[in-house]
């Protein structure tokens, strides 16, 4: 019996393949976007964990200096000779123009087992590993990618994070030019009879962290992706809801017939549940495949984004995780269940004997509009309160969520009120009918229109944010890269020769020198800046005390970047710790986009005194712009300097802009996808309504309106609704952009950007949404135009 019931239920889809396609597409898209984003997040997080595991970061405590400087070798030896089991690690980076490789040098002789990593198993040539030039263990992906020049032999090994090399500490020392360990790993078991480690050293013992620094830094980005994924999932469910609603509505009569022929209600519901689950599972599987494809396609972009924004390296490739696939499938089933629940409930309550003509699920919804309006107001108020009193990234996203959901709920109210107003103003009876009828349609279309609103608002918000960011970033690059030429030397000796050679050939040779430190307990950088008009005139200061430059170069004050300033809620004049022995007041704050960590600038002379060991190998050279290319060539010819160490301003700008574009490529792609899904949602909703609307249209047709006119009116109505939705999405999108720029960006990246608007983009979006509306409405309209009069007549014959 169940089988026969299922057969007759499935026959519906065979006769309505378009509807089935819509349902499958909706489910598959919802699953795909959501699971794709999850896959990306999981891959990135796994990659952070791998990076941490390579050094046993996940399980081993470490010793490091409070100021972030390397641990003197003598401190390490003293600890070993006192009997403590600690193991040195030299961590650094090798860079060239287009590649960077993180170097992690461990001492396999002392490294605790947990820190050795899987890479040191297997047939490794250890003599070569220990002796110059050494070996670098890298993942196959890293070995295939762009790499800095002049590296030792690469050996491919699994389990090494991307763009990182595991090597012997001696090789790391040679490559990074650093002989002192960056930090010491502490073995979990120490020999018996020793005093506690804290009594034996001044170094700071830090316990293994649950999440690495990178994971914390990138949290905001992943939250961002998740929000997009969730939005897409919701929009996909709109489609599913519409498709299922349509299918149930159309089969209402068949359900009655089946029950009259002796199919118990319970069997009918079971069969329906089976039917939807089967479709959901199949669509879910398709969605998982699609999600995997989307994730794999986006992954290089995500990797680029994470590298560009945070310096975090994740592989550009995706691995397949069955747990991910299963959880995605479960989510699909839950989503399908949520979308079906209403239709199932209605079927269960459907009396066997009520009139057979379909009752539009929209009609009785007039009251809900009012409660939606109230809910929207409550959400707007909540949004304002969170904005006022909330803190942190999650609060930022909560503001966004309440704003968006509120706006979505507001939409039907907004449209109803507007159409009411127009209806009252107009005198023409047909137009009046159109307005009244459109208003009546709103509840049925509202879900789809909300989806469109969300997609449009997100689009406007994100593109305004990215555009503002881009504009600000370009202006900032011009200020920050004031020098015409940037030159690096192989070593300090060559640097001195280079500086001497450059002095008579240029207007100024400005040293660029920096070192890693810990600023307010997080990794950061200190730069030494030479006194020159280049900086005084151009450096992008956001705020400063009047004598900031004089005090900076006198070694009496420090400039810090906006990220540090905002993160720690500092104020001008407040003192910050630069080294253990030096605390300086803040004289100014400068913008520093694209850099996740804190940065401070002190006078060059003070820097040399504080960090005598920091190598001075880079210079900014001021020359007339037209002379820069010739001078660059002359430097390369005169000195044995690698090409990538001599770069002119234009090259660096181009590179920076590329990084920037790469960074927001993923956002763009997700934006387009969401908009596409919203268009689909609109189409399915219109299709659903179209079949339910015959009873409303038939009398209008009967009293003398041609089908063609009715069809054209339907089309115009869709366009009108889409345009109104677009109009509402403008303020919502701009509010969204403002929250992104002024709240989320500050929390996530530490910088606040001035908002710029791009009306040309809005017009483009209007065009897009109108096209979506026309596409979505044309099929139902066309159908209407071709509906045989008999079908319209049936409406009357079935009325009882």
């Amino acid at each position, binding site marked *: 019996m169940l089988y026969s019931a299922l057969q*007759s239920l499935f026959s519906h889809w065979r*006769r309505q393949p378009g509807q089935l396609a819509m349902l499958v597409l909706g489910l598959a898209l919802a699953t795909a976007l959501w699971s794709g984003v999850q896959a990306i997040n999981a891959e990135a997080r796994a990659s952070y964990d791998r990076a941490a595991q390579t050094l046993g970061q996940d399980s081993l405590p470490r010793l490091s200096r409070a100021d972030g400087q390397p641990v003197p070798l003598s401190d390490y030896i003293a600890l070993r000779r006192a009997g403590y089991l600690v193991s040195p690690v030299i961590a650094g980076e090798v860079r060239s123009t287009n590649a960077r490789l993180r170097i992690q040098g461990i001492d396999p002789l002392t490294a605790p087992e947990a820190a050795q990593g899987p890479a040191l198993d297997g047939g490794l040539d250890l003599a070569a590993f220990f002796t110059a030039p050494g070996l670098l263990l890298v993942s196959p992906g890293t070995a295939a990618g762009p790499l800095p020049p002049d590296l030792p032999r690469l050996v491919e090994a699994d389990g090494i994070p991307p763009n990182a090399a595991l090597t012997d500490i001696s090789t790391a020392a040679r490559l990074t030019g650093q002989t002192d360990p960056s930090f010491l790993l502490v073995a979990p078991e120490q020999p018996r009879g020793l005093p506690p480690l804290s009594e034996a050293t001044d170094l700071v013992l830090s316990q293994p962290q649950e999440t690495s620094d990178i994971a914390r830094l990138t949290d905001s980005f992943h939250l961002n992706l998740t929000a997009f994924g969730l939005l897409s999932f919701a929009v996909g469910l709109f489609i599913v809801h519409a498709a299922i609603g349509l299918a149930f509505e159309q089969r209402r009569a068949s359900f009655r*017939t089946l029950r009259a022929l002796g199919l*118990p209600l319970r069997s009918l519901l079971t069969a329906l549940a089976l039917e939807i689950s089967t479709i959901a599972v199949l669509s879910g599987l398709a969605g998982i495949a699609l999600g995997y494809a989307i994730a794999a396609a986006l992954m290089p972009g995500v990797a680029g984004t994470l590298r560009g924004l945070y310096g975090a390296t994740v592989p550009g490739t995706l691995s397949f995780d069955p747990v991910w696939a299963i959880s995605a499938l479960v989510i699909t089933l839950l989503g399908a269940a949520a979308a079906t629940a209403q239709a199932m409930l209605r079927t269960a309550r459907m009396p066997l004997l009520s009139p057979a003509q379909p009752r539009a699920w929209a009609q009785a919804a007039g009251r809900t509009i009012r409660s939606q309006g109230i809910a929207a107001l409550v959400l707007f108020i909540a949004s304002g309160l969170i904005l006022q009193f909330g803190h942190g990234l999650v609060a930022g996203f909560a503001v966004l969520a309440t704003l968006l959901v509120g706006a979505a709920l507001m939409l039907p109210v907004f449209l109803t009120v507007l159409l009411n107003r127009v209806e009252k103003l107009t005198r023409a009876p047909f137009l009046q009918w159109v307005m009244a009828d459109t208003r009546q349609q709103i509840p049925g279309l509202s879900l789809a229109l909300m989806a469109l609103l969300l997609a449009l608002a997100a689009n406007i918000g994100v593109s305004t944010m990215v555009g503002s960011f881009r504009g600000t970033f370009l202006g900032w690059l011009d200020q920050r890269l004031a020098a015409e030429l940037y030159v690096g030397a192989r070593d300090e000796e060559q640097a001195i020769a280079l500086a001497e050679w450059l002095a008579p050939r240029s207007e100024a040779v400005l040293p660029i020198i920096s070192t890693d430190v810990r600023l307010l307990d997080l990794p950061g950088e200190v730069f030494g800046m030479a006194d020159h008009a280049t900086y005084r005139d151009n450096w992008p200061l956001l705020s400063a005390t009047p004598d900031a430059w004089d005090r900076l170069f006198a070694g009496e004050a420090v400039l810090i970047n906006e990220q540090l300033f905002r993160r720690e809620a500092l104020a001008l004049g407040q003192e910050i710790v630069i080294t253990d022995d030096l605390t300086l007041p803040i004289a100014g704050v400068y913008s520093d986009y694209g850099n996740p960590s804190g940065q401070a600038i002190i006078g060059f002379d003070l820097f040399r005194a504080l960090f005598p060991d920091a190598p001075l190998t880079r210079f900014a050279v001021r020359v007339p712009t037209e002379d820069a290319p010739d001078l660059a060539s002359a430097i390369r010819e005169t000195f044995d300097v690698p090409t990538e160490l001599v770069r002119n301003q234009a090259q660096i700008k181009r590179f920076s802009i590329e990084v920037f574009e790469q960074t927001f490529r993923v956002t763009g792609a997700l934006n387009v996808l969401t908009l596409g899904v919203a268009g689909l949602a609109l189409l399915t909703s219109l299709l659903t309504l179209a079949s339910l609307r015959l009873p409303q249209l038939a009398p209008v047709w009967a009293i003398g309106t041609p089908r063609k006119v009715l069809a054209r009116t339907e089309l115009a109505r869709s366009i009108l609704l889409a345009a109104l939705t677009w109009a509402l999405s403008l303020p919502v999108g701009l509010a969204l952009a403002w929250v992104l720029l002024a709240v989320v960006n500050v929390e996530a990246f530490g910088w606040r950007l001035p908002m710029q608007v791009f009306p040309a983009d809005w017009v483009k979006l209007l065009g897009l949404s109108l096209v979506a509306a026309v596409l979505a409405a044309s099929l139902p309209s066309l159908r209407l135009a071709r509906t045989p009069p008999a079908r319209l007549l049936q409406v009357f014959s079935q009325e009882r």
Partner: protein
Amino acid sequence: MVNSFLNIESVSKSYPGSDGPVSVLRGVDLSLAAGETLALTGESGSGKSTLLHLAAALDAPDSGSIRLDGVEFAGLGDSDRAALRREKIGLVFQQFNLVPSLTVAANISLQARLAGRHDADLSARLVERLGLNAVVDRYPEQLSGGQQQRVAIARALAARPALILADEPTGNLDEATGDTVLSLLLDLVAETNAGLLMVTHSTRLADRLSRRVHLSQGRIAMPASAA
């Protein structure tokens, strides 16, 4: 009366209306012997369709008793009522028309399959007898009204029910087609020895059945005549 197959005793039914409950049936007694054909006539609103719905266990009376083949309807749940319908009753109602997504052949065998007693030979014979040979692979929307009604009759008979309930089976058909269809129905009912309770407002058609009962304002107005 003792041998009667369908027993309806003092059945009353009212529906909620805008000015309080509206009594549709007021103590109706009716019985049908096995193999008997009975026409139920009456004005619009006389309650004849409601009586048919009650007899089909599609709805329950407010009071009174309905028994089919000795089974009392009162107290049966949805599943038992459904079982009763698919195993003992064939419905030829306009309201429960064909499933649009199934072919004519699939529609005809639908109830028989639900009841688990599909008989391909019987179906084939019914198709033959009802002149549906040319259209078995078509879908209902491609058929004329008369053809659709014949498919409904075939569907009702294919499950070999003991009782056929028909509600204006020829209502949407022109007179000639209606006559043909009714003749076929009566012939087939006679062949399968099923009982037939048919609602019609046409006395001309009612006269072709073995007995006729007139319903007026919810009561049996005129007892059997012809038999």
